[in-house]
């Protein structure tokens, strides 16, 4: 028992690593998450509209792309993009590991968001499209102003879930190798474990992850609940009209 406590909950080691975790690890983790999720949202939106497009030459490539990046293990995708691309000569970002990492995480989570957004868009009743088109509003404007806004609102909780997943996935980028000041939470924990043969710093990193994910999960659930139970339509009777002058034939 003492061994367990010492291996995972060595408070001295945790406290020693805390400054690093809070001043280097946490900001980097948050930066990575924010940047890659932003990219994921943009990609997800574009892909989702391609997935529901009437043009097969938009739909099919989008479908293939989404299926691939949803199907591959995240760590493999990160390595292919972050490690493989530079090797193959696509040295777009130079030495910046972060840029590759953000690209990879953006692509992976973007594929998942594409499916989420697509299902939201397709859940909007066809009557909405019919009403907008009947007014003479173009297909593109109908999508952009009437369908997508409604569709996105519906899947906000699911999209926020993806945010939490994206946050956790930032831990995987350690596989690309990071310089000391660029280390996110997990790599700090991992390096300490490798150096000291002790996992306490990794546990501390884990606690910091939980400090973000658990409250976010509760917030998302609360939001989801309020969306579902939200304002009910008012049951109001119309004002009674003047009595009809002629006999009703009905």
């Amino acid at each position, binding site marked *: 028992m003492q061994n367990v406590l010492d291996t995972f909950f060595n408070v001295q080691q945790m406290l020693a690593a805390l400054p690093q975790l809070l001043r280097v690890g946490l900001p980097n983790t948050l930066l990575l998450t924010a940047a890659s999720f932003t990219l994921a949202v943009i990609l997800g939106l574009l892909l989702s509209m391609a997935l529901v497009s009437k043009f097969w030459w938009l739909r099919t490539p989008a479908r293939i792309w989404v299926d691939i990046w949803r199907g591959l293990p995240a760590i493999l995708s990160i390595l292919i993009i972050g490690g493989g691309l530079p090797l193959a000569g696509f040295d777009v970002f130079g030495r910046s590991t972060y840029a590759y990492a953000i690209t990879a995480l953006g692509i992976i989570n973007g594929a998942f968001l594409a499916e989420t957004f697509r299902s939201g868009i397709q859940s909007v009743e066809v009557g909405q499209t019919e009403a907008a*088109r009947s*007014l*003479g509003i173009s297909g593109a404007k109908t999508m952009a102003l009437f369908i997508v806004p409604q569709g996105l609102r519906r899947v906000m909780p699911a999209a926020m879930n993806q945010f939490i997943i994206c946050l956790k996935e930032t831990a995987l980028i350690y596989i690309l190798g990071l310089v000391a000041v660029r280390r996110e939470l997990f790599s700090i924990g991992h390096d300490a474990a490798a150096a000291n043969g002790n996992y306490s710093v990794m546990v501390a990193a884990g606690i910091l992850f939980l400090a973000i994910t658990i409250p976010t999960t509760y917030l998302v659930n609360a939001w989801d609940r309020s969306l579902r139970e939200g304002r009910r339509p*008012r049951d109001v*009777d119309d004002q009674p*009209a003047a009595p009809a002058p*002629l006999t009703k034939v*009905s």
Partner: protein
Amino acid sequence: MPTPERVLEIRGLTKVFNGRTVLQDFDLDVHAGETVCVIGPSGSGKSTMLRCINRLEVADGGSILVEGRRMPKDGKDLDRLRSRLGMVFQQFNLFPHMSVVKNVMSGLVHAKGMSRAEAHEIAMAKLELVGLSRRARNRPLQLSGGERQRVAIARALAMDPAIILFDEPTSSLDPELVRSVLDLMRDLASRDITMLVVTHEMGFARQAADKVVFMADGRLVEQGPPTELFDNPRSERLRSFLSEVL
């Protein structure tokens, strides 16, 4: 006296769906200022016919002329011609994420490219006409069914269309809410708004229509002034239909 302009001219409209003939050789004229009611049993093709006019459904044969112009297949021309037609749906189909007045403005701003200020003025005037200007800032979900349908009518009116198509506008309403919508439609008819109304409300058809069309099995069976059709039905089909619904 010059004959009123033919706003809508349908010739030989035909549609087959899944092997079933939904519309067969359907002809119809609607003149400016007319109110035409289309009645008939369920599955008679009434709604399909209406939805073919603004190309929500695509007919397999025949022609549709709106203000003398053929309905284009797609693209900006279709959008333009659609803006000459108004449609009121059975399920209202208001945009729930926008206020009532924004709903009424939507066609003016996004189809006609009107400035928001001008569109707002017109929208408020139409809301006044349907008696709902006090609800301009509300969201559709806060309104009753009858109020929502009246907003939908205002939305169609705002576009100043050549003709408004009504697809069973009161069929989704609770009985006590139907009257307010029918009163409004009667008022519009008396103002010479051109209307083509698919409906089960025989009372409304009798009182407000200039012409009633009876459809069954995808065909036009009989048409004429309401008094003729309701009091002196010529076809057996119409007679049996009327005996069932009246």
